[in-house]
């Protein structure tokens, strides 16, 4: 038996014959910030709901702190929760909203005031105790929801797309704050999102989900740089994929071009490489040892603020995306310009086609 904070063992959930979560197993360590990342319908919210106890799995075991809690009612699980719509009680003021989980678990009256004050200070809402939900901005409601989730000091907090309704700047700011609070309190957080940047900014580990299955689990950088599948590669950012047939660490395209990758495969494969790993050169030079290189024609070049993104049309009619920093000397290339993209073989991986 694993004594981790949260463990799923072969958990499966079906709705009307449709498998929504398929034989899922994960073990989450105490104090870990763990993110379930996937498109809508990938089963991430259902997974969270089974951990919370709102949904009972058809098969498998849900463990909290090692104990089998598969069939325990939500109220017996002692989890903190932040809901997608915040679920702020409209008839209660900020203080009573944050005090709700404490009162619900019959905390002694002398404990309620200091705990609420502490939680509100943590989310920087001190002094707002008497406000009502409808007097709060979206960001403030989010903070109330967060304060309420941590007021009872649960070891584990579940968050279901808590930042989805906020605008981009505020979202980034709240990501940092949530991460900061999580570190300070040493909480285990299970976070659901479909925003890959959010996932990478906050998580110790990311679990990419698709069609009710775990696609890949790992630290953000590992999953980003070494995806185990085309889905994981494409979901966690921009990705170039060149089709061909692999033999060892070598991929040969139908046009007869060869590339070297960091891993070995056999049979039809995709060569994966991130756009920022590629370097674009106007004058074709033979590739250095340990480098891949391919020539094409620029079909689009755009200034995206922090990067210049160039699309290179290959002879195979595949398009490579190259992201270059916008530092001094960086310039857009006119469409039609012939150019060569090069990258280190170690930066590319062979994936199942």
């Amino acid at each position, binding site marked *: 038996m694993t004594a981790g904070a949260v463990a799923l063992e072969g958990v499966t959930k079906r709705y009307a014959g449709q498998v929504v979560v398929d034989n899922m197993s994960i073990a989450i360590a105490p104090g870990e910030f763990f993110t379930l990342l996937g498109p809508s319908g990938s089963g991430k919210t259902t997974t969270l709901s089974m951990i919370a106890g709102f949904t009972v799995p058809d098969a498998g075991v849900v463990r909290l702190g090692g104990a089998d809690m598969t069939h325990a009612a*939500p*109220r017996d699980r002692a989890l903190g929760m932040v809901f997608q719509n915040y*679920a702020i009680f*409209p*008839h209660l003021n900020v203080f009573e909203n944050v005090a*709700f989980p404490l*009162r*619900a678990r019959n905390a002694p009256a002398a404990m309620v005031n200091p705990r609420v004050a502490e939680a509100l200070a943590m989310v920087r809402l001190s002094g707002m105790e008497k406000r009502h939900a409808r007097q709060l901005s979206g960001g403030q409601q989010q903070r109330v929801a967060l304060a*309420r989730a941590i007021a*009872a000091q649960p070891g584990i907090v579940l968050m279901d797309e808590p930042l989805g309704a906020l605008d981009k700047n505020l979202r980034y700011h709240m990501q940092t704050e949530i991460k900061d609070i999580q570190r300070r309190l040493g909480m285990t957080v299970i976070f659901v999102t479909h925003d890959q940047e959010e996932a990478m900014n906050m998580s110790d580990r990311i679990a990419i989900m698709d069609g009710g299955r775990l696609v890949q689990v790992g630290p953000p950088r590992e999953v980003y740089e070494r995806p185990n599948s085309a889905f994981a590669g494409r979901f966690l950012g921009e990705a170039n994929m060149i089709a061909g047939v692999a033999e060892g660490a070598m991929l040969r395209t139908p046009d007869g071009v060869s590339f070297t990758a960091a891993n070995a495969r056999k049979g039809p494969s995709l060569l994966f490489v991130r756009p920022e790993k590629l370097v674009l050169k106007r004058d074709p030079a033979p590739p250095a040892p340990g480098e891949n290189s391919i020539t094409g024609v620029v079909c689009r070049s755009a200034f995206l603020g922090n990067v210049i993104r160039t699309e290179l049309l290959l002879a195979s009619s595949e398009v490579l995306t190259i992201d270059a920093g916008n530092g001094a000397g960086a310039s857009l290339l006119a469409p039609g310009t012939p150019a060569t993209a090069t990258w280190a073989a170690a930066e590319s991986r062979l994936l199942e086609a």
Partner: protein
Amino acid sequence: MPLSARLTWLLLAPALAVLLLVFVLPLGWFLVSSLLELGTWPEITEQVAEVLGSRAMRQSLLATAEIGLATTLLVLLIGYPLAYGMLKAGRGGFRAIIACVLLPYFTSVIVRTYAWMVLLGRTGVINQILQELGITSLPLQLMYNRTAVVVGMTYVLLPYMVLTLFGAMRGVDPRLLQAAAGMGASGPRIFLRVFLPLTLHGVFAGVLLVFILAIGFFITPALMGAPEDMMAGMLIERQVELANNWPVAAIMSIILLVVTLSIYALYSRFADLRKAIVA
């Protein structure tokens, strides 16, 4: 999309015309002509003071208030669980409850009141069953008392309460209840601290609506009540039909109307409050 002021009035016009024609005009005519019979202002005010001070009027207003309150309370106690049942029931259950609540609603009050008389009469169904089972030897006096009036009125007024409460309950975001459960709240706590407070505006609205309707009741108390236990409506009718004293009937009507409109003013304040809470 908010309608323009002109279109709003255009849409309201038919209803206002009907209201004017069948309510405001006859009532105004009745009040004015009745009061003119009395003559001058001093004579009118003297008569008003006399009616207000009369034993019959005071007793009747007290009976009206008591019966109205008892009925409203009973309707609320039956209506709240019923509306909650409608909310929680599946498709079939919902239809069954709504049919039970609404079918009588579409039946005439007189028919429904006679139905109660068939049940409660000396040789009625309930007395027969009680005697057959040997629980009672002599027929019980179930009719012509205040209890019978309250029971009959409760039955008639139940749909107003149930529909008002159901509307309020359906407005409660179920995710709030789920959130409360996730925070460790027990079933009773979720009900008392979340569900009930969020439906309280519906309770106020339903209570005021039913009370307003109850104090104007005539048929049910006239058919099922004790003759000496008169509600305001019966007293007014008696002044017109038996005493042929139209001025007194007019004064009593004004008093009842003022009371009703005052409560209605309260009701509309809660109706506004509902928007403030739920929005």
